[in-house]
């Protein structure tokens, strides 16, 4: 391959594939390089893709029998747990049943591979059906620069050239660091370690246990003792015939508390309430991956250079502000925005830093950076020990008293709440938290 590409994309995850799909549809000649055996081979997520962008990328994906997604979400649950109890906010609605769905649960090894096939279809229909490629099993070791402009990539002794490079390499963004857009050493402060198990059930058992209907699914997030006091939380998502259950643990806090992530995961699974929820299945995979916290301080200041754009979690675009853990939808949208910048660049034959800077502008004007900017207080609130330790304990203390019926005069709920507050926190602490919470959400 001596000829030059319009664009080289590094990484066939959600961001890279979204960029590739957009380029293919706009007749841009590209090379998408993936280090894994196939797209998705190295990728791990919780994982829910929130929002409706997937329908833009693969129109009417819900009609595809062999689709790579597992279930659509029509049932949400947020659970506060302490050592022995679980107190949930639970919401299920028919409103979520019609496509385009507002969230789909995926397993990346399957989903990314399916999406890559869709990109292959788009390539086949493009003007560059013989000149654009998805190449797997190739590790990009270097972004080639000429002066301040990216001109291609190197793998081993081989070099490939392009007018533009999109870095979509994921959170462990070595090339982004090499390009000088992020520090060589990134401290643990805004990084969490995720650990997860895939547990398989007979499909009918899974569907009965979680009240699933057809391809409907449930997402359940956990705050509190799930993490044994470590900053972070837990999750449980229903796939077709498996569940994804896991934890995300603040890495700095994990280091300070000297705990092992797989031990905490076992404690979570052994929790009296969780134990009943997951009984009987067979663990078929254990996985782990780091994830960004969504704290803006962890996001590189500049996501572009001449001929170079960074998208997805390579740009640390991810956020959990309490409502949902959003990462893959950010990856998708930022991949699309990066590709659109390149389509415009090609039409003007301008790959300068000024043109590339437009990507950052578009990103700032998109819901991604608007939400990340607007919900920083919520992100920080979730990482406040009062929120992930004291509040769940307090809520469960109240739940135990409120739902316990004794054959004796019952206290008023307000008095019970007072006791719970006293036992685990103070009114003053909660007022402070409430004020922060009211402002942040």
């Amino acid at each position, binding site marked *: 391959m001596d000829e030059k590409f319009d664009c080289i994309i590094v990484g066939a995850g959600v961001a890279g594939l979204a960029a590739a799909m957009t380029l293919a549809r706009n007749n841009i000649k590209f090379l998408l390089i993936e280090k894994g055996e196939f797209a998705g081979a*190295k990728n791990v997520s919780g994982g829910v893709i929130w929002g409706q962008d997937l329908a833009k990328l693969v129109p009417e994906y819900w009609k595809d029998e062999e689709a790579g997604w597992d279930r659509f979400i029509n049932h949400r649950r947020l659970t506060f747990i302490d050592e022995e109890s679980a107190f949930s906010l639970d919401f299920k609605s028919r409103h979520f049943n019609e496509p385009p769905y507002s969230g789909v649960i995926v397993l990346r*090894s*399957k989903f990314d591979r399916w999406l890559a096939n869709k990109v292959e279809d788009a390539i086949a229909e493009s003007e560059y059906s013989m000149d654009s490629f998805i190449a797997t099993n190739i*590790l990009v070791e270097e972004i080639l620069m000429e002066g301040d402009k990216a001109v291609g990539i190197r793998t081993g002794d081989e070099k490939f050239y392009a007018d533009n490079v999109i870095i979509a390499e994921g959170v462990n963004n070595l090339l982004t660091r090499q390009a000088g857009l992020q520090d060589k050493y990134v401290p643990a402060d805004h990084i969490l370690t995720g650990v997860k198990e895939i547990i398989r059930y007979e499909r009918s058992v899974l569907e009965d246990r979680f009240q699933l209907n057809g391809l409907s699914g449930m997402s359940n997030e956990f705050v509190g003792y799930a993490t044994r006091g470590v900053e972070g939380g837990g999750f449980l998502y229903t796939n077709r015939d498996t569940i994804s259950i896991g934890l995300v643990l603040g890495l700095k806090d994990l280091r300070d508390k000297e705990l092992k992530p797989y031990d905490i995961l076992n404690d979570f699974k052994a929790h009296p309430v969780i134990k009943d929820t997951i009984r009987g299945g067979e663990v078929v*995979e*254990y996985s*782990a*991956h780091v994830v960004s916290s969504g704290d803006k301080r962890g996001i590189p200041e500049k996501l572009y250079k001449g001929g170079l754009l960074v998208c997805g979690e390579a740009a640390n675009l991810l956020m959990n502000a309490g409502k949902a853990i959003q990462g893959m939808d950010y990856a998708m949208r930022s991949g699309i925005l990066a590709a659109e910048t390149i389509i415009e660049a090609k039409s003007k034959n301008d790959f300068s830093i000024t043109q590339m800077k437009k990507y950052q502008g578009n990103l700032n004007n998109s819901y991604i950076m608007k939400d990340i900017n607007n919900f920083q207080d919520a992100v920080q609130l979730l990482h406040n020990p009062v929120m992930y330790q004291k509040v769940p304990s307090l809520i469960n203390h109240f739940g135990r008293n409120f739902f316990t019926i004794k054959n004796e005069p019952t206290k008023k709920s307000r008095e019970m709440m007072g006791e719970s507050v006293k036992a685990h926190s103070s009114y003053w602490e909660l007022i402070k938290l409430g004020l922060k919470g009211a402002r942040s959400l």
Partner: protein
Amino acid sequence: MKLLTLPERLGLISYRNQAKSEIKPHIRVETEICNTVCPHKCTTYVCPANCYTLDENNHVHFQVEDCIECGTCMYACDQGAVTWEFPDPETGRGVTWNFG
């Protein structure tokens, strides 16, 4: 349900180039740093695959074979002892997820 030990969990993982006797490690650890100046030796407990272990003399040892490329040690080590790269598809180790 039965709780799995870490070796049982790692036994479920598909690693690359398992048939190769010699693999090129994608992570290099200067255990000299761990064993002299590091105040916490945190990799020995934060690593989700337990690639970092302590011997009876409290010295850190590293093996790359079980590494699942999660990235944890790259951030957790604040002593500059860990040099992290992605494994080479042909000569390295690393994972292929079946579910992901």
